[in-house]
């Protein structure tokens, strides 16, 4: 039966090629526009750390009060060293890390090779477990390394390949600026996008880019006066100079993360954070009531508008466009099916049931949908390729076609076409055989 309907469908599609082509073009354009914008949206709103992101929280504390330039008095994304240190000591979360961006000039042991720049982060050892950093060799440093601020170093696989040809380099030494570090671990491939964990401004939080090269203990970096590579943000009246002044200032430059596995943990930490700010108010450091935030990764990404508004809006507009296409497809299929009323009449008179007619036309619609889907695939490919030329390369790298997208394109176009065909099919099934036979 299906084979017969299939054959009928092919015959009918070939009989009115213009109408068929119009329907196919409409389906293809509609599905391609929503798929291209969907691919962009998917690339930019992908969960940077699936399964983990909901339990990683970033505490924010308003330590500027009325001097806060933000119109809504939103606390800054980073903390002052005073607050970061206090939170580290309080140890109110199962796992926690202070974090800031660093940059060094790496001097290779082989004197014939030129020094080069490396970027990374000063973190606590909890960082590796919190952010699912895999270890190719060795492991993160110990808790006592954190406390004592030793010269332990975790390097990226890329840096390990470059310096040690990919061999196990645990125990080897690396010279960064003027200080020797000892490699305790080599991280495997790890580069969540966007680099939400990074320090700093909204711009940096939504940054897409390469994986960090090195990680070193936060305490050590502070002791060695390793400056933050992102920069710090000070109140306009800040007059201090030098490292010690910075550590005792209200300048914000340290990102802080806590790992809170259960909602109860999160509630507990939120009240801890509130109490901390309240204590600062009692001590006279803050002259304003506690103004703190505890956002997890999805909330943080929404807050900083990690996905450009234009991308979201264009996806919605593309969905609207798809609707326009469907309305057209309904009309054109109606035209196509009603034109064949005499044929339906004959089939009905020969004993075909309404269901059989309905099935025949739905199969035909699904076929048109499949052909439209193929065109949609082609147009989606062109669109995604064009997107690579449009967007900054870092983001464009994330927009890609995969089997899922291909499957979705075909599925959407076939389902949409069959849905659009429901009314025309119903009308076709209602054709009265007597009317058609009489008029002929």
């Amino acid at each position, binding site marked *: 039966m299906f084979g017969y309907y299939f054959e009928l469908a092919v015959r009918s599609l070939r009989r009115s090629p213009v109408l068929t082509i119009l329907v196919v073009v409409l389906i293809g354009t509609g599905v391609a526009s929503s798929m291209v914008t969907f691919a962009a949206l998917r690339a930019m709103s992908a969960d940077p750390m699936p399964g983990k992101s909901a339990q990683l929280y970033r505490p924010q504390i308003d330590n500027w009060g009325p001097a806060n330039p933000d119109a809504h008095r939103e606390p800054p994304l980073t903390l002052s060293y005073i607050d970061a240190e206090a939170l580290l000591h309080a140890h109110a979360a199962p796992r926690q890390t202070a974090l800031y961006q660093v940059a060094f000039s790496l001097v290779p042991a082989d004197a014939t090779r030129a020094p080069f720049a490396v970027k990374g982060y000063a973190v606590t050892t909890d960082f590796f477990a919190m952010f699912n950093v895999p270890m190719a060799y060795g492991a993160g440093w110990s808790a006592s390394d954190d406390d004592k601020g030793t010269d332990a170093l975790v390097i990226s696989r890329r840096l390990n390949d470059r310096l040690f040809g990919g061999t196990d380099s645990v125990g080897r030494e690396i010279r960064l600026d003027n200080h020797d570090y000892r490699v305790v671990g080599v991280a495997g491939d790890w580069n969540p996008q966007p680099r939400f964990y990074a320090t700093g401004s909204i711009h940096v939080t939504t940054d897409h880019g390469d994986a960090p090269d090195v990680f070193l203990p936060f305490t050590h970096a502070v002791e060695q006066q390793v400056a933050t590579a992102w920069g710090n943000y000070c109140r306009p009246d800040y007059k201090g100079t030098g490292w010690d002044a910075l550590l005792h200032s209200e300048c914000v430059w340290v990102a802080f993360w806590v790992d809170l596995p259960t909602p109860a943990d999160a509630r507990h930490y939120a009240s801890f954070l509130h109490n901390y700010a309240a204590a600062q108010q009692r001590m006279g450091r803050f002259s304003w009531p506690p103004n703190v935030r505890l956002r997890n990764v999805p909330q943080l990404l929404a807050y900083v508008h990690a996905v450009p508004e234009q991308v979201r809006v264009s996806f919605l507009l593309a969905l609207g466009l798809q609707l326009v296409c469907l309305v057209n497809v309904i009309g054109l299929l109606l035209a196509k099916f009603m034109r064949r009323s005499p044929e339906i009449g004959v089939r009905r008179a020969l004993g075909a049931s309404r269901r059989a007619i309905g099935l025949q036309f739905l199969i035909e619609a699904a076929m048109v949908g499949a052909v439209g889907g193929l065109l949609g695939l082609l147009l989606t490919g062109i669109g995604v390729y064009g997107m690579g030329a*449009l967007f*900054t390369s870092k983001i464009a790298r994330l927009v890609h076609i995969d089997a899922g997208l291909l499957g979705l394109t075909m599925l959407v176009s076939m389902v949409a076409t069959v849905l659009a065909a429901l009314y025309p099919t119903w009308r076709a099934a209602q054709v009265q055989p007597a009317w058609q036979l009489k008029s002929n």
Partner: protein
Amino acid sequence: MSIRILFSTLRRHSMMPALVLLQVAVACAILCNVLFLVWQQLQPMLAPSGVAGNQLILVDRLASPQRAFTTAEVRGGEVALREVPGVRAATAAFGLPMVRGNLMDIALQGPTGVKVGVNGYLGAGLIDVLGLQLVAGRDFLPSEYRDFGIGGTHEKWSAGGPQPIIITQALAKRLFANGRALGRLLTDPSDKNDLGYQVVGIVRHLLRNQLGLATNGRADDTVLLARRIASTSTLSYAVRVEPTLREAALRSVRKVIQQHFGALLPTGITARVSTYRSRREAVFKSQRAALGLFAGITLAVVAVTVIGIMGLTGFWVQKRTRQIGIRRALGARRADILRYFLAENALIVSIGVAIGMLLAYLGNALLMHYYELARLPWSWLPIGAVVMLLLGQLAVLGPALRAAAVPPVVATRSV
């Protein structure tokens, strides 16, 4: 042809017109919004910058948070830059076009009570260095400059009178009733102790550096203040060069900046030296991307609407071949048939467009609620409407011509 006949036909066969109407409404709503978004993206790109773009090299990201650059270091950089072959003028500045790191926003209030938030550019001799066109008044006098720095020197204006200010033509028009601004006073509504500003000069154009606000005629909301950069923790330079020697000068400027500031910058901070042109290119990159996305959607909407109306009307004309034949046999000319179908399409599309404008407005309100988008001005609705009407007429032309070509003899044949 009375409109009553048009309506009665539409009532009798309501499916096809209803589908055309529905798609026109949705397409019109999309088109109004997407064209407005395109315009929003385009405005800062089209706004004249006022600067001598192909003669300009900009240096920024000279930052030293721990220890501010001294006045001598800042001046030394200026002197060294001026000695570079091909350099016409150079000055340390705070706030420069296409440099988004250093922003200064100032609130200004004119005598008419209009308040405007503007961006301020500071630096000695900026008119000359940026190549601005002074259309009235004068540049700042050397005696008028005061020292300025972030986290360093910051001399307040305290000369007993208002401080001089140079504004753009657009600002002069907005802040003063008759546009005559020269010599007149502006105040800062946020600062009660402020002595105010006196307009001493007017430049033709000067693009602001908060480009997100450079829409709806606000692109030129920029002023110059009489400040000389002194000890500061963040520093930038504007360098004007001979256009023919630009590339060579760019390399030399890089070298000079490295020599002067390389040792003063903390690890990880590198100065950025590039031409105005390349910065403009980079700054507008995301704008161009969004523009491409929106342009793609616009094109698709136009294509889909034209194809759709063509297909639907084509079928509808075919269905009425016999009626057309009868009308022709009863004396209607080809032009009458053509006009009938064009009028019918105009009627359907008009109703669709009316609904579409409402949808566009609601859709925009909805988008505004969830995303930070600008409000769609009423004036944009007719633009989408006119475009849709033209598209409708264009799409129906083919089927209407086919209808007009139906010979009267059809009326005498059975189907």
